[in-house]
């Protein structure tokens, strides 16, 4: 597989079109008056100007819903889509573990092999780590989710 093909794996191209969770309505973008169990975060990728606004809903210790709005490259959209699918249902500790594993793989410059057991579909994003300029794309939704989750109680 060429390194381009490892970057744009079939699942990435599909997820970038699926945009699961990409249904945050416009009138919620401001994120005012959030209840305690909801957190929301806006992230901008300064390199390209792409943006995402991501909302996380929790029930007790668990993530019960993710909704986002935004536009960006296929990597960033696929990453948001996969994240939305994976994180709902996890508890905080599980999300934390997932996040730090994902971040570690992304920053490894191709040196750390993704563990599909841990990362699931997100393992398909591991090709990104060989393209330092695109790591921000893959991380965008994750950084937003981490921050949003930290706002909830």
């Amino acid at each position, binding site marked *: 597989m060429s390194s*381009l093909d490892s*970057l744009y794996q079939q699942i990435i*191209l599909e997820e970038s*079109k699926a945009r699961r969770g990409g249904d945050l309505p416009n009138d919620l973008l401001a994120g005012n008056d959030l209840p305690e169990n909801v957190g929301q975060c806006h992230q901008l990728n300064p390199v*390209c100007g792409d943006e995402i606004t991501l909302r996380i809903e929790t029930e007790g210790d668990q993530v019960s819903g993710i909704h986002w709005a935004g536009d*960006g490259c296929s*990597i960033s959209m696929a990453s948001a889509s996969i994240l939305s699918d994976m994180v709902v249902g996890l508890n905080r500790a599980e999300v934390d573990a997932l996040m730090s594993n994902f971040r570690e793989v992304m920053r490894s410059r191709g040196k750390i092999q993704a563990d599909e057991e841990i990362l699931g579909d997100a393992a398909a994003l591991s090709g990104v780590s060989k*393209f330092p300029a*695109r790591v921000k794309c893959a991380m965008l939704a994750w950084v937003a989710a981490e921050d949003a989750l930290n706002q909830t109680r």
Partner: protein
Amino acid sequence: MTESATHNTHLPLSDAEVLRIRNDFPILETEVNGRPLVYLDSGATSQNPLSVMEAEQEYYEQRNSAVHRGAHTLAVEATDAFEDAREVVAAFIGAQSNELVWIQNATAGLNLIAYAFGNASVGKVSEAAERFALTAGDEVLVTEMEHHANLIPWQELCRRTGATLRFIPIHDDGTLDMAAAATLLNENTKVLSFTHVSNVTGVINPAAELTAMGHGVGALVVLDACQSAPHLPLDVKALDVDFAVFSGHKMLAPTGIGGLYGRAELLDAMPPFLTGGSMITKVTMEEAEYLPAPQRFEAGTQPISQAVALAAAANYLTETGMDRVHAWEEFLGQRLVRGLEAIEGIRVLGPASGAPRAGLAAFEVAGVHAHDVGQYLDAAGIAVRVGHHCAQPLHRRLGLNSSTRASTYLYNTSADVDAFLASVAEVRGYFGVDGTPA
């Protein structure tokens, strides 16, 4: 002297001659991702010929020293090299050498002008400097196609002085709305600043006409020549602009150097911007008196070797012939646009084929984000620029956030353009957005 000396400057450039020119640029022989590099990002930064690198090396091996300061032989030689460079680069744009100020880059040059105007607007200044002062009610006029470098410094100047920033809108094809320009210019317009050539649409603005219109209402006229000085014969006197800026790294020279042209009379009247050593006559703990231009604007140790290298670059371009460079890039630019127009799902920003444009083309690929386009091309060894190209308002006006841009220079062949077009034609298929199953 390198290959370039053998150019036959009577004939237009041709692929054969460009192949000879390429021998002067070692980086063009490198491979990227196992494919020969096709460099189509000269609009961002250009590559350096051997003669430029050698000029700098020679400087450091034989006469590196502080200039305008020492009595010793190296200092004299460094000063000569530095001031000779000023003469060469000034002549390259049709200016006198006392009208050329060295700057780090065009951005710094535009900031210099804006801050000097700002300095004329606060506290006690000389009578001569008063003409640069701005207050509430005054207007600064730019265009909707500006690079951020020719927009934000004016926003900040207006914020500091209370003046108002206005802009001339563009038509859908990227050209300037000249009727609107005529309406917007009025006796409150103190500054008119515009780009000569758009770095996104390739539009070449009618600089002489705009300048005359600006002068008609008494405005000072500033030209962003970043995309023109490297690519076409530029004569600031013929255009009659008051100020002009350009960056060396876009015209075969290293980073860290550029030029600010200012009419002698204006430069001498303008208050300083950066202050420090080498720009003063008399200094007490309380106050300082300043040298005339250009030294007044050159505080501290200057980018000396970079100035020497920029002069070598100007010489290289002059020896090749700027009219020939311009004609060749016009040819490449049309080839780019015609080729892109023929590919399904591509929308070219700016004028359609046949209409005048510089040797570059930015475009949108339906269904594929610009960064993905760029990534695909990179895998084929083709270097293009993706993003907003530091022109967010222009992109917004054209209804998008980002685009992909291919930009040529004198070392690009038609084969470069064709390789690029062939790759672009594959993009939508690769990303599965052309209707065929991926």
